[in-house]
């Protein structure tokens, strides 16, 4: 669900466009600290994963299904700066190759889904991870809280932009509460999917989860005597 052309006035589109361009420029610099010279292939493949992952329909509850937005998932998996780049790449491809999201609204879409969702989501994740115990459950709880909040945060930011640069005189409170209500539900779905996917990656390759770096401990080696059961195997 991307903002199309014409929803916001040119001034707002231009401002968010400049904001998005600045952030992407910064992210291009900072992503190298997360991935060094592997940035291009790894961010590209992760973007391809997000693009494919958005097409997977997850069963949520009571026969409903939803798909991932993926901002928090990407940020927890590969780090926030790389996540900004991946989301930007996905949004750009969707706008240019699929006409999904207007070209003049590209800056707005990147600001909302690439920048704000990642910044708010990763901020909440770091905050929660700092107070929660450094365990698998702690990381997953922080991930869930971040994914849940990132969706209504982006939706409310859209309402704010619409109030500032929208072309219609609507009661902002009504629109805000309606959007918040719907997106709290979507946020629950996003949280369920994100936690499940991060949990699945943690189970097989915990070293690949950027947000779970604190969990890594040196494997303890122990001297095991061959036993009868071991010998029989």
């Amino acid at each position, binding site marked *: 669900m991307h903002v199309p052309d*014409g929803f916001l006035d040119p001034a707002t589109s231009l401002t968010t466009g400049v904001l998005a361009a600045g952030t992407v420029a910064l992210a291009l610099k900072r*992503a190298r600290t997360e991935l060094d010279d*592997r940035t291009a*292939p790894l961010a590209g493949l992760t973007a391809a994963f997000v693009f494919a992952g958005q097409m997977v329909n997850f069963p949520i509850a009571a026969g409903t299904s939803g798909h991932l937005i993926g901002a928090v998932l990407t940020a927890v998996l590969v780090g926030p700066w790389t996540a900004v*780049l991946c989301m930007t790449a996905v949004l750009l491809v969707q706008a240019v190759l*699929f006409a999904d999201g207007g070209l003049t609204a590209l800056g707005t879409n990147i600001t909302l889904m690439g920048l704000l969702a990642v910044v708010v989501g990763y901020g909440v994740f770091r905050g929660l991870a700092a107070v929660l115990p450094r365990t698998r459950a702690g990381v997953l709880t922080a991930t869930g809280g971040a994914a849940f909040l990132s969706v209504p945060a982006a939706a409310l930011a859209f309402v704010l932009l619409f109030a500032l640069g929208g072309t219609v005189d609507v*009661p902002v409170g009504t629109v805000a509460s309606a959007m918040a209500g719907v997106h709290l539900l979507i946020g629950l779905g996003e949280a369920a999917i994100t936690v499940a996917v*991060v949990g*699945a990656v943690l189970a097989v390759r915990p070293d690949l989860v950027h947000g779970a770096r604190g969990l890594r401990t040196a494997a303890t080696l122990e001297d095991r005597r061959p036993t009868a059961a071991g010998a029989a195997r």
Partner: protein
Amino acid sequence: MGVTHGGTLTARYLPGTSVVHRLPPQAKLLAVLGFAVVVVATPVHAGWAPAAYTAYLLLVLGVATAAGIGPGRLARGLVVEIPFVAFALLLPVVARGPRVDVLGLSLSESGLAAGGGLLAKATLSILAATVLAATTEPRSLLRGLERLRLPHLLVQILMFMIRYADVVGSELHRMRVARESRGFTGGGVRGLRVMAATAGALFVRSYERGERVHLAMLSRGYSGSMPGGRVVPAGARPWALALSLPAAAVAVLLTGALVG
């Protein structure tokens, strides 16, 4: 998963040799962007706005005809608009200002105009972008973006994404085939866990593929930038031809502002 896999990224491309197909991608990108800017800049509440929107529509349909894009393809491009149609339909109900009775419903006048204007603007821009996507290959669009001075690293990321999107997509497809041949039907919380394991495995495989690609590139002498053919600068005539679309739109806008 109602989306077809295999060739996902090129799904919107319609091979052809029309004038529009042959235009340089960077010119087409700027032309569509310029057209969208003019459409967005058209004031919704002006009396001549509907006439201007009709003129824009004729312009886009003219380009689509020249490119050999059928109405079915254009209509399918509009599917992405659906959530915002709902939003636009809500506007007349919730907007403030003088009310007007339509079919027994008390609707806001300014909300009606604004909702209609939003729909018209979004539809016109999506049609133009659909023509762009249908006449330009993904690789060629990337060249256009590179030519328009998109940062080099971002172009590389996009290049890897475009190259491997179909690989990752068909990986996902194979996983679905494997899942369903084991009798998986989905639904419920158990289904969520299975799908999450699928997505998790897909991430691990994509990331590891990225690592292998990087090593392969290093062993072939990669030093941070991709060797690529020079992007050929386009001549003045194709540029003029491509920019005639936004130019015509500007003419419509000016005519409306002066005459209306």
